[in-house]
């Protein structure tokens, strides 16, 4: 007798329930993962977005011809001019300690800013002109926080006197927060309001270029040789096991290797993207080799047979047919490896890329730092204003990682061929 197809037996019910349960567990797991990711990125972005704006203050500076020697514009006491204009704004302040506090409202960079302006337009000498200067990090944080000041003076970094001065500037509209282009155009600084990410970005870019130039050709050639040409024997097994092991070696070990061999034995320049790139290449190589071998293995053997059966030599079969088909996979592996290298900190610490670098490096042999190292350095700094810089740098790093992974996906879509 045939059972009714619509009848729900207990066994069938259990099977349905198990399936539903599993699907809901799966959805829950994904939701949880996305939730944590969103919380993490959102909290970092929330703090980091503050670094995109910086507080400026307007001061009327009298460019005293007595102070500025027009033949030696470089050497005048611009700091003194800024201080003089602050004193003029608040003539009631006479005590030294209070004066120092007053000067502290403005970033220590104010003198340089003034100097550059004067050097660009020397005609201004002798006039009183309104200039915008960066404010110091504590004032900047206070103004951007937009919260009413804590009632307890001890509990905040801005004293009541400073508050009064800030209010005085505010009442005349002389305080503005503007887009912080400096963050993207300058190097590191001890002063948070002056610190920028460019030198780290350029250092990272140089390191990655060196890393890619070394690891990609070496990696894919090694993979092609191992997969297509080398005989299968005990030696090739040994090499394969070791490549897999190398992929799992903690990255700091590669840093130590770089320190011992590249810096101490070969005497390559310390803290340079060249050495950083070589170390990252060593670290990335196993990843690229493994990914490339998998890509080569995914090319159907019938393609090799077709080429060989026509009388193509092994190298022709490999480079005319197999490697082009495996290339998207190889590129994806390389980009994923590069993305990992971009986020790597530990090996760079060992080879001195943790240094305080103000200048943007111009070549791969100049001292540089890298994005993740910059994040580490800023996170380690005592100034509170570095917190938002740290978060902003993390966002920049994440953005680059996302871009690279996106490039990998697009590349695979574009070059992938069906066979």
């Amino acid at each position, binding site marked *: 007798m045939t059972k009714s197809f619509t009848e729900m037996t207990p066994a069938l019910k259990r099977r349905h329930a198990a399936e539903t349960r599993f699907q809901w567990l799966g959805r829950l797991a994904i939701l949880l993962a996305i939730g944590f990711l969103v919380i993490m990125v959102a909290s970092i972005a929330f703090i980091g977005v503050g670094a995109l704006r910086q507080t400026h203050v307007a001061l009327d500076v009298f460019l005293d011809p007595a102070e500025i020697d027009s033949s030696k514009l470089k050497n005048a006491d611009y700091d003194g001019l800024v201080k003089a204009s602050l004193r003029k704004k608040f003539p009631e302040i006479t005590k030294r300690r209070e004066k120092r506090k007053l000067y502290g409202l403005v970033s220590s960079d104010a003198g340089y800013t003034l100097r550059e302006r004067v050097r660009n337009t020397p005609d201004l000498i002798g006039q009183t002109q309104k200039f915008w200067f960066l404010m110091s990090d504590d004032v900047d944080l206070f103004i951007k926080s937009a919260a009413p000041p804590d009632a307890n003076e001890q509990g905040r970094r801005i004293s009541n006197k400073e508050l009064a001065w800030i209010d005085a500037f505010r009442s005349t509209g002389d305080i503005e927060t503007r887009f912080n282009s400096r963050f993207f155009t300058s190097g590191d600084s001890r002063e948070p309001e002056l610190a920028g990410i460019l030198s780290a970005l350029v250092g990272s870019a140089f390191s990655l270029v060196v890393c890619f130039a070394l690891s990609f050709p070496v990696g894919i050639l090694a993979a092609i040789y191992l997969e297509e040409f080398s005989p299968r024997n005990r030696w090739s097994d040994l090499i394969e096991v070791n490549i897999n092991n190398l992929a799992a070696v903690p990255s700091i070990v590669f840093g130590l290797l770089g320190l011992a061999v590249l810096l101490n034995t070969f005497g390559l320049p310390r803290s340079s993207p060249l050495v950083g790139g070589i170390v990252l290449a060593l670290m990335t190589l196993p990843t690229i080799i493994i990914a490339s071998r998998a890509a080569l293995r995914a090319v159907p053997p019938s393609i090799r047979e077709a080429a*060989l059966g026509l009388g193509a030599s092994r190298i022709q079969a490999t480079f005319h047919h197999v490697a082009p088909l495996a290339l998207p996979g190889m590129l994806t592996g390389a980009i994923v490896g590069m993305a990992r290298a971009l986020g790597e900190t530990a090996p760079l610490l060992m080879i001195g890329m943790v240094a305080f670098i103000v200048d943007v490096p111009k070549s791969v042999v100049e001292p540089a730092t890298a994005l993740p190292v910059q994040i580490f350095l800023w996170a380690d700094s005592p100034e509170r204003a570095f917190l938002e810089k740290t978060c902003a740098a993390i966002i920049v790093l994440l953005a680059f990682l996302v871009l690279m992974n996106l490039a990998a996906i697009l590349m695979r879509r574009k070059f992938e061929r069906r066979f």
Partner: protein
Amino acid sequence: MQEPVYVETLSVKSVHDEVKPVISAKDVTVSYADKVALNSVTLNVPANQVTSLIGPSGCGKTTFLRCLNRMNDLIDICRVRGEIIVAGQNIYDPAVDVVTLRAHVGMVFQKANPFPKSIFENVAYGLRIHNMAASKSELEDRVELSLKRAGLWDEVSDRLNDTGTGLSGGQQQRLCIARTIAVEPQVVLMDEPCSALDPVATARIEELIDDLREKFTIIIVTHSMHQAARISQSTAFFHMGELVEHGPTEKIFTTPKDTRTESYITGRIG
């Protein structure tokens, strides 16, 4: 399907005596690691005929076929002993270059495997790597000739730049045949070329094989005894790694000498 083919085969003279063999295998033994796949096979393949290799699965017929242009070299654990003479030369001589050999002995595989490139490039590739066309126009002429010989020209002449993998299964297999014969081999090996095709596509390829016999010596592995009977003039029956019987097709199918051959062709083993 086509009775006349049978009649035609009767006119072919006795294989071993009068037709000069283009391939002769002597005492060929093939082993994969410890397993012997082919045991002391001696076989002469006559020129400008279709020779079928038949036998149950695992009998060694494909192994034998792949020995003839040394495709077995690709398998690390494969060892070949004995002697295979093609055009007067022992192809397992260490001095032999497989590249030249394979240009001389082409191969069509069980599953159509066109390159994921254009139809034109598929056929032109062999000509390019063997420098067989001095100019672009010569290359185009040779591609056209090969596609015509493979009976594919009329179907693809207006879309030579389309990808070869976009053709139907039967067209892909004919493209593979065009690609193989483009380099003017003396011998074409075919490893069950119709096993993945429908009867209509199979019939077209069988016709094609019969036409190609004029210019090429064809050795075909097939599981279909009807196919062997239809298209081949000589047949070799393999069983358990041994060559049981070889002779003119009509003799193998009508008066087999060996009882194993008889059992196989009547469907009792295999």
